[in-house]
């Protein structure tokens, strides 16, 4: 596997770990200490941050785990072990899964807000990407950045999904 892939993976790994730690921190201060002073690392757009690191320790743990898998791939590759392929593959699979989760969440929230319109009612609440905590979360942005790794992992993926 080309070095470029591993370095990209390592950069992604660092970003996942950073945003994961931020989510854990925000979760702890918000859930357990009732504080609304959250730490954000991103661009402020309207009333939200892009990406929005909403408070959730388990979500943070998931991001950290994905990040560590990317970093473990780099570590094993530098030591000359072929097992780095498995770590990179696992990291990519999880990254894509949480990306899909983020997209599903956006669709579900949209549906939840506006389904009463189907029978002539009023929306349950006003929804926009800016007010949805999951709107543009690190899961979505980092997942999109991880997508191109598909081209380097397609042999593995095709082994699991023949005919893809």
């Amino acid at each position: 596997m080309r070095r470029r892939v591993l370095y990209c993976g390592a950069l992604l790994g660092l970003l996942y770990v950073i945003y994961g730690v931020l989510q854990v921190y925000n979760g702890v201060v918000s859930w357990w200490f009732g504080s609304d002073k959250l730490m954000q690392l991103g661009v402020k757009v309207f009333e939200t941050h892009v990406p929005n690191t909403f408070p959730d320790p388990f979500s943070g743990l998931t991001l950290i785990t994905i990040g560590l898998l990317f970093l473990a791939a780099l570590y094993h590759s530098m030591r000359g072990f072929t097992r780095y392929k498995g770590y990179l593959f696992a990291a990519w699979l999880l990254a894509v899964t949480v990306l899909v989760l983020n997209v599903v969440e956006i669709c579900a929230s949209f549906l939840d807000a506006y389904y009463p319109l189907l029978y002539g009612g009023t929306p349950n609440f006003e929804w926009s990407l800016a007010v949805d905590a999951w709107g543009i979360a690190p899961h979505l942005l980092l997942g999109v950045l991880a997508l191109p790794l598909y081209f380097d992992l397609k042999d593995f993926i095709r082994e699991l999904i023949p005919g893809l």
Partner: protein
Amino acid sequence: MMIRVALAGNPNVGKSVIFNNLTGSHQRVGNWPGKTVEKKEGVFRYDNEEIYVVDLPGTYSLTAHSIEELIARGYIVEERPDVVVVVVDASNIERNLYLVLQVLELGAKTVVALNKMDLAEVSSLYLDARKLERLLGVPVIPTVAPKKVGMDELCRKILEVARTKRQVVKVRYGNEFEEAIGKIERQLEGDKALEAYSTRWLAIKLLEGDEAVIKKVQRAASGGKVLREVEEIRKALKRKHGDLEMALINERYRVIKYIVERAVKGEKVLTASDYLDQALLDRYLGMPIFISILWIIFQFTFIVSMPFSDILSDIFAISSERLAGITGIARVDYLLFGEYGVLNGVGMVLSFVPLIMTLYFTMSLLEDFGYIARAAFLMDKVMRKLGLTGRSIIPMILGFGCNIAGVYSTRIIPVEEDRIVAIVTNPLMLCSARLVTFVVIAAAFWGSAAGSVVLSLYILGIALAVLVALVLKRSVFKGRVSPFIMELPPYQIPSLKVATTQMWVRASLFFKKAGTVILLGLLVVGLLATTDVSTLSFTQDIERSLVATIGHALQPIFAPLNWDWRLVVATVFGFIAKEIVIGASAMLYGVSEEEFSNFLALHYDPVTMYAYMVFVLVYVPCVATIAAVKHETLSWRWAVFTIIYEIVLAYALSLVILLIGRTFFPGV
């Protein structure tokens, strides 16, 4: 005279195909005496000799921890067949050789059928059968059973070995162990009661502390003396090697490694599954990955089901409005369609059908993908370190769906003590019935992070089950742990058809339950809520109802937990079925599903509600689960024990959470 042959081997090595190839249509299928394990036997002729073949149950070892192992070992030891044919999967030689070594320890005359040679070649593994034969000291015949390759050679070797007096087996363990085995063998020699057994096997088993063999030796004339000597030897070895059973397992694998290094050329080509396993079963990252995958599943379940639950909730609210007054009898109308009515409660429960369906859909996808087996493997490592059996993982995972299924599935645990421990701790698993309650509360207080809060309850349930199991294993059920060997199937793309079927099956079961137990339970709550306590006539004033009287009487017990009487009654009725907790709450507070979340957020704080969820997670299991506990333990004693310990634990834990919450997180 007829030659008797026993076919032994790991599960899925092609043993049955070889059995069919040998015996053709001359076979009989029955059960092993007194057991429900299938016994296959058949007869065939070769070179003018009549050969009887018995197919032993597939086992990974002969350590006598499971019924299959006991049968296989018992047959070889007691029935002493002329030849034991050990069928070995050549594409997975290391694991299979373990059983070969154990058969050789028994002193049985052995032939190894090196099956699946074609698959080994596909995996770039080249096995030198002649070298393997020299290293083991017994004939090794390469075979490809489905193509009947090697069958003639196998029959020829069976006859040859059956005609020899004894084999010279070359497997030897480390010097210290060989010395100990030699000493014990000398003690055993000459005892007429033990003459029928291989002294080397008896010595190894005594070193391992095998209870069945110890009993056997105890009955012999020299038993007492031998066992005293064995104890001395064990003590000396234990000081250096710790657990001797584990030390001998390591010795066998050391020998296997030596053999494989010499007889196998090439390196097995790793598949995508193998690579993925290296990461997903990583020593340090395996558990965080497991927790992350659980989080993804629950988050996905809540997210996808949320709009559909809301739609269903709206439908029930509209139905209640439209049906009001339809019967013309005020009391019945109020009981069924009023704000404290049964339809409100049943609707509340049924609005979570999408949640149950999505949960089973995602769990089925995960199982089909092959990850559930990995999860069991990861948990087994933790459990074994704590001295618990890894086999209880499967009932625990099934308990996430329904505790009743979890309790019944403990039958896979062969050791009775381990099974009872798994049974009485299974109700601590967060089942789908309790999930319904938790989703409402978590959504009310933690919004988009509801999935994480519920995940924390799943983890708490597992931790408590392990803790209670540990206490029981260290106090009531002291003893050793039965080992757990499992096959990890290759990962595959999950089948949407299977997942959808599973989802519908579960949904129909949920509907059935809602239409019977839950409806009846809520009807009782509704009747009590509309019956005046003094006149026993119809009332719309819930504070003057029978249910309020019951609630007020019980409320002081739960006052330290900060509950009002309505929450007390709803929780008590959850004893019938856990879904009733949320249905009865909606009825007693007189609010619909959507209003219920707001109502809770206004009247309670997150710490009280988290402590409440912990109470509901832990307290007394539902009636059907208690019946299952009684049925599977064959005793009311354990059913009563389960009820009592869970109530005490639930109360204590909730109180502790409240105290900690109030002391350390006053801002919440």
